[in-house]
């Protein structure tokens, strides 16, 4: 039964390798392009860089403020992820495993929330924040701008808009768990809260890791909410900074800086993915044995 060379296996490897190459080559190309000089971008896109023009990166950091945007992005992403987990885990657990009045309605509401696209609710959200500012102004006077350009509020909005997706994902995992876990815990005298934190949540580790990974990517690359709510230069996030480097018509194209910026955005996600990927496997195997 040891792996023999069969036609099936050859085809399998060919398919896997073709897909892998179709990903490695273009992504590697972005890295190579990021060390090209500006004038190299007008010709054949697939030529190798003539030299190592690392100034693109220092220019992206110094002139395009990528450093400060980077910090903002990290902060927003971390805050949003923390809030999301605190909010979504208990909610998903209870919604999927407890029967109570209104349960069905809430489940349906969150499910419907999946279909709400931030692209069209962003303006109403923004106007709401503006009204919030006006309200604070009335109470405290002065020029308050608490709700806009606030990293915490931004994180809160990210977390809130990610709730339907996250709850849906976690619920569908919780639903597959057998009922006897809780019953056994109650017999042992554990309370509801204890049962959730000590027994159910550790079992949900693979799903939690999936949730973290997916939402990290969503928050890190998010552009539409950020561009509307974080208008001050000091509060902008990386994707917004990146859009500013994009070649706009009639404006001088700054390709070198743009591609350096693309790499700066991409690299942390790559690194984090590599790290989480290992835990993902561990978590999944652990869950598998238990199941």
């Amino acid at each position, binding site marked *: 039964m040891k792996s023999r060379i069969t036609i099936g296996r050859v085809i399998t490897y060919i398919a896997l390798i073709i897909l892998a190459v179709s990903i490695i080559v273009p992504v590697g190309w972005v890295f190579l392009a990021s060390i090209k000089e*500006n*004038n190299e971008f*007008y*010709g054949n896109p697939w030529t190798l860089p003539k030299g190592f023009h690392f100034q693109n990166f220092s220019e992206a950091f110094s*002139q395009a403020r990528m450093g400060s945007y980077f910090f903002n992005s990290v902060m927003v992403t971390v805050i949003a992820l923390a809030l999301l987990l605190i909010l979504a885990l208990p909610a998903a657990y209870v919604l999927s495993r407890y029967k109570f009045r209104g349960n069905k309605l809430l489940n349906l509401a969150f499910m419907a929330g999946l279909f709400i696209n931030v692209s069209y609710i962003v*303006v109403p959200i*923004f*106007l709401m924040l*503006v009204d919030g*500012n006006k309200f604070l102004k009335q109470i405290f006077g002065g020029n308050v701008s608490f709700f806009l350009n606030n990293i915490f509020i931004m994180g809160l909005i990210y977390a809130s808009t990610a709730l339907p997706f996250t709850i849906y994902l976690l619920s569908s995992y919780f639903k597959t768990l057998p009922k006897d876990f809780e019953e056994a815990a109650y017999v042992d005298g554990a309370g509801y809260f204890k049962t959730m934190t000590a027994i159910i949540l550790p079992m949900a580790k693979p799903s939690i890791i999936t949730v973290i990974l997916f939402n990290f990517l969503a928050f890190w690359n998010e552009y539409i909410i950020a*561009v*509307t*709510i974080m*208008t001050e230069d000091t509060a902008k996030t990386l994707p917004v900074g990146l*859009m*500013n480097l*994009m*070649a*706009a*018509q*009639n*404006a*001088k*194209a700054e390709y070198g800086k743009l591609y350096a910026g693309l790499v700066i955005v991409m690299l942390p996600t790559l690194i984090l993915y590599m790290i989480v990927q290992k835990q993902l496997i561990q978590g999944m195997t652990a869950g598998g044995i238990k199941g």
Partner: protein
Amino acid sequence: MKMKKILALVMALTLSSVMVTGCGGDTDKDQSKGGNTTGGEKQTLKVAALESAYGADVWKEVVKAFEEEKGNVTVDLTIDKSLETVISAKMKAGEYPDFVHLATGRPDALTETLIKDNGLLAIDDVFDMTVPGESKTVSEKLIPGFRDSSIIKPYSDGKTYMAPMFYSPAGLFYNAGLLKEKGWEVPTTWDQMWELGDKAKAEGIALFTYPTSGYFDAFSWALLANIGGPDFLKKVTSYEEGIWDTAEGAKYLEIMGKLAEYTEKNTVANANNTNYLKNQQLILDNKAIFMPNGTWVIGEMEEAPKAEGFEWATASIPRVNESDEQYITTFFEQCWIPAASENQDLAKEFMAFMYSDKAAQIFANYGAVQPIQGASAMIPDSRGEKSLYAIYDTPVNAITDGGFATTDAVEGVSIADSWFSAYDSVVSGSKTVEEWKAGIVEASDKLRPALK
């Protein structure tokens, strides 16, 4: 080669000096905020300007010059490549800038939206104001033709709501070096144009390309005027009924249909936001001869590799007959004051300052030419834009009021989509000229009742 190095050095120097002043500006702002409590007379003007081909530094310098001129004014400057997203959000929140430099004809059409919503301040008095620090009025300095442009008078009330900025000839851009090398003449009539197209085709060179279909507005204004004069152009852009069934309308469609056949084959595939520079590169590589464009293209393609002996030049849009009048579209940007601005008087002063020699010189240093007399001469000799203004020394009539008549918003109808975007389909062959015409007529019919 040397030239380029010097240019780069100069740019680096100006850049670093502006960065220093930029930092200085920030601390100024902080001081003014702190100064409010001590009760200073300092006024703050909120200026928002689009960062276009001329860069962001040009505005920092102009603002600094204005602050120096006024002494007690601080300018709070917002510059952004996508200015619309930044300021439209704030405006929805009721926070309006006092002065905005943002032209019509941009994809987001924020300026047009405010026009439709009656959101601009009438600024006729600005033209009678004396330019700060000088003795002449704005009107006296303006090049004739701009004051009466219907673009800056969008309604039928005769009042002016925008001020003209940065003008440039919008003609056909080409490589003079290529024509010289081949011994080809610049065509002045369409018959000569097609002749040249056939000659070029034999050598594997396409006659025509365009960056994106959006560039056909300025092109079409000149072509329409060449065919039927400015009155005909006016009728077309104000959606006159049946205008496309006239002989002139048919002529325009016929020329455009033929031009599509002479267009470089990959043009449509690259005529989008990400790839339009590839179409412009065709001119630099001698793969296509002409493209409609504006002077900013020089900055856009500054670092792009060019064919040997490359030399930017502009030509007018060809005429039908040698004896016809020659028209050329003058492209210009606009600045305006939101009706909701809280600092209108100061904003008007700033607007008037735009026409001072001091400001015009700063603009010219970056290749932007103000519509005041003598401004094109202010461009430093080292800049390629200078030679392009020579086209005004030839016998041409400048069109400064191309552009569609203002209408109320009509849901789902965009004349630019039906006219210019649809031309992509004509070139790619998925629409016939007849179908294209039907689309334009349909959009015109829907917009006509909504004219303001």
